[in-house]
């Protein structure tokens, strides 16, 4: 036991505490000896350096996790307010237990939490039937009804003979514009135009293959201008010009000869002169229908060509005319 010339342990401990408060270095050994003397314990001899004392693990702050939103949603809520616009799938807001994806071996289909497959695809949660109905109700005032009296195509053609077609395009690309949107097509049936034979013939020669003989429709396609409005005006300009040109008769058109005709015309033909001679030479007056039939058959023979039906009809007609049938 260490004794410092009359200094009691109690006084010594007071000195040490004072020293500690004044940040004066004190030897540990002295302090431990003192402590041991106070508590009357056996001193431990430490030969090795102390092991690293493990600090207590850092305690993570436990955040107050709010429960997912779908747990607080009422059953009769207005879903249109929860999902008002198109949005990536959010599992905590959607109260449905949806599953999507190919399951790993031995597993079930992956659920909605953290499901990339569900998030990748476009969802239509913003377009539920009640929301569509509500939005359409709001849009109704901008719509106008179809006027009565033009329900069928025939009636539409009677009132509005011209049909103009245009296409517009909507796609995601670096540019808004699509060059194909400038193309304008105009369709009109020739029976809506006031054309005589000469006018019709001339118009068909001018338009060539833009006229479809089966439907008797003229189709004009304009794409030469950069804007569709310009192409639209050009289409109507072309129609006006074609009509007016075909109604005009140029002086050189009278130079057209029989060989230039695209169709056989009965009036003024040698067949008509020959028939007239036969009728005149015949004592009994030939009936009108026989003459008409002969005329029709000869026209068909020239215009449609010589094949079995036309030739047989011609034979029958001639027999009737001559009086042998």
């Amino acid at each position: 036991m260490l004794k410092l010339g009359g200094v009691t342990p109690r006084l010594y401990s007071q000195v040490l505490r004072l020293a500690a408060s004044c940040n004066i270095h004190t030897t540990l050994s002295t302090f431990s000896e003192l402590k041991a003397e106070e508590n009357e314990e056996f001193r431990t001899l430490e030969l090795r350096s102390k092991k690293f004392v493990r600090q207590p693990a850092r305690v993570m702050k436990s955040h107050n996790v709010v429960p997912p939103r779908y747990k607080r949603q009422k059953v009769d809520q207005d879903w249109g307010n929860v999902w008002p616009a198109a949005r990536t799938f959010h599992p905590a807001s959607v109260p449905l237990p949806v599953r999507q994806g190919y399951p790993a071996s031995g597993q079930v289909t992956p659920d909605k939490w953290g499901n990339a497959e569900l998030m990748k695809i476009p969802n239509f949660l913003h377009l539920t039937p009640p929301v569509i109905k509500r939005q359409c109700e709001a849009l109704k005032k901008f719509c106008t009804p179809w006027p009565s009296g033009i329900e069928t195509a025939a009636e539409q053609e009677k009132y509005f003979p011209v049909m103009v077609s245009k296409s517009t395009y909507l796609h995601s690309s670096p540019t808004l514009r699509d060059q194909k949107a400038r193309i304008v097509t105009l369709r009109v049936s020739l029976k809506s135009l006031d054309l005589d034979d000469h006018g019709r013939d001339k118009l068909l020669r001018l338009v060539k293959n833009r006229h479809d003989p089966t439907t008797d429709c003229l189709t004009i396609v304009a794409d030469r201008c950069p804007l569709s409005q310009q192409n639209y005006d050009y289409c109507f300009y072309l129609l006006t010009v074609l009509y007016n040109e075909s109604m005009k008769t140029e002086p050189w058109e009278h130079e057209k000869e029989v060989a230039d005709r695209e169709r056989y015309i009965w009036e003024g033909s040698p067949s008509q002169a020959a028939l007239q001679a036969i009728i005149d030479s015949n004592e009994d007056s030939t009936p009108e229908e026989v003459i008409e039939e002969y005329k029709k058959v000869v026209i068909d023979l020239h215009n449609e060509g010589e094949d079995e039906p036309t030739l047989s009809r011609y034979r029958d007609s001639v027999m009737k005319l001559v009086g042998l049938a």
Partner: protein
Amino acid sequence: MRKVASVLMMAGNIQGAAGSIFGRCVVPRKLVRSTPACGFRISEKLSAIPLLRSSLLPQRTLSPKLFHTASLSYLSASDDLAVGEPDKLYSLVEVECRGHDTAVLRSYLTFVSSAASHLNVSLEEILWPKKHIHRWTLLKSVHIHKHHRVQYEVRTHFLIMKFARLTGSTTDTFLEYIQRNLPEGVAMKVTKHELHRLPEHVKPSSEVIV
């Protein structure tokens, strides 16, 4: 189209948060999604009609445009808005959608047919043309290894919807609604067949009623 968007925004403000049409998250996207080339005529027509501004009272209703016909009468003179030009008439509006996923196109068809039935638009025909597969082969390695290749393909599915007998106002409204809700990855082509009278200097035949 500006008119449609502005009134919808106003309607949203009037009805308030509860039961509002688009809720608070409406994002005014680009109003003219179709190309300016074809939108030119439409925007020209709209500028002739005064737009609904926020200074107007909410009770005032927008009146529709006039339309061609002999059987319908014109609007009354008490209407405040200026009498605009006649409404267009479309005998057929074809909407062709293209996408890489049939499920998306099917869902979109459900939405479009539902909207058409609410707005009294007649959906005449629905066609599903055959899908188009574009395949090509590339070399797998950057350098040599000609016998090792990799093949890619892109599948495009088509959906055609035909609507008949639409007026210009209805077409603009309906198409804008549909196009704003077009899903990602789907492209659309709209073909409008408009009815017109003969131009001035072309004489109509007796079949045409002027």
